[in-house]
Each structure stands twice: as C-alpha cells, then as structure tokens.
C-alpha cells in the first residue's frame, strides 16, 4: 500500500531560523512528488512537483529536494507569513494517471 509520512507533525520556528520538513514515501515506482501549502480554512496551494531523484526546485524562501525515499522542503530565513500547513503527495507510475496520495501535513508556525 502506498504511504506518505510527513514529519514533524508540527514545527515552531523563530523568524529567520531556517529548517526542513520531511516527506518520506513508500510507493511502487514514483511518478511525481508534490508539495502544497494550506492556510487555515482554505484549499491547498500548489508549490512544486518533483519527478526524479536529485531534482531540486525553489520558490522564494522554499526549496524542495527529492531522493529515492524522501523529499525535503527547506525553509530559509522564514517569515511569519510562511506559517501554514505544508502537504506532500505522491503519484505512482503504472497506476491511475491522476491519483495523488497525500500525507497528513506539517503545521509550521513562524513567530516574529
């Protein structure tokens, strides 16, 4: 069974304190790994898709990396507006071309 595990469940940082969120996955052939940001009471906002080990993508203070077993979302010098829940999802190859399996998310709080 496909599994996506995110850690930690919650992370509290001071403004400017860099850190990383982890997404480990068990899937029989990865077609893509997705990162989303979700603010309370809103729909998830698409951030990145990664397709192969070694790939990296950046957006402002966020950088996502991918290995064969996990992905990291690095947050450099975070600001309070980066506070949100970050969701990771995987799509496996050979299965439905559309189905994503989501992790339960990491709640990030950045204090000023």
């Amino acid at each position: 069974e496909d599994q996506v595990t995110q850690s930690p469940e919650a992370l509290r940082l001071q403004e400017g304190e860099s850190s990383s969120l982890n997404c480990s996955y068990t899937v029989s052939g990865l077609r893509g790994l997705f990162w989303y940001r979700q603010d309370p009471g809103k729909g998830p906002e698409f951030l990145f898709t990664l397709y192969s080990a070694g790939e990296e993508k950046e957006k402002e203070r966020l950088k996502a990396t991918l290995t064969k077993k996990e992905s990291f979302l690095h947050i450099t010098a975070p600001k309070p507006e980066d506070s949100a829940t970050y969701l990771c999802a995987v799509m496996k190859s050979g299965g439905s071309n559309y189905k994503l399996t989501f992790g339960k998310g990491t709640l990030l709080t950045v204090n000023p």
Partner: protein
Amino acid sequence: DVKVTQSSRYLVKRTGEKVFLECVQDMDHENMFWYRQDPGLGLRLIYFSYDVKMKEKGDIPEGYSVSREKKERFSLILESASTNQTSMYLCASSFWTSVTYEQYFGPGTRLTVT
C-alpha cells in the same frame, strides 16, 4: 492564473437531505477531483473525472455520486446526507503537459450535517 471555484464556502444541511456541491474551473482542464479533508485523516479522494461523463471511484466513494456534464463543471452529490459526512470538501482540477503535471484546488466547502 488557474481558477477553481466552489459554489459555497459554508453549508449546513439536515440528515437525510440531498446535497449538491458544485465546482467550476476556467482552464479547460481534462481532469477534475473531489476530496474530503478531516483532522487526523488528511485529504482523501472521493471521485475523479478524466473527461466529460467519465468518472472513477476514489478511495472513499460510499455515500457519494458525481456528475460531469460539461468539461468545466464537476458536481458532488450526497444522496442522503449523514452526520459522518460533515467535513471540508475540496475540488481540484489538473493537467498534463509533456513534462509536468499540476493539480490545483478550490477554496473548499465546509459542510455541516446536523
């Protein structure tokens, strides 16, 4: 910008009522999805559609049905609402290019069944 809209942000219904949730996307995407999101359970796929009039069951289709009569519109139907269907419902649409896949979500509908 991709835009996915949902008919209501908040909805309160009674047990046994038939409930319609509507989703519209303006980017001509082939694929559309309905998820529900619950604390501690994360996002779970209810149904998806890869073309007009085409649908496939997701992980938790029981108690739900869907309709896609037009490419831009995907409806979720709760035939007889029950209290365990109280949840946040999220619609999404997606597209493939030769090099990328992206899935975009709407703002969500918070449904309460009393």
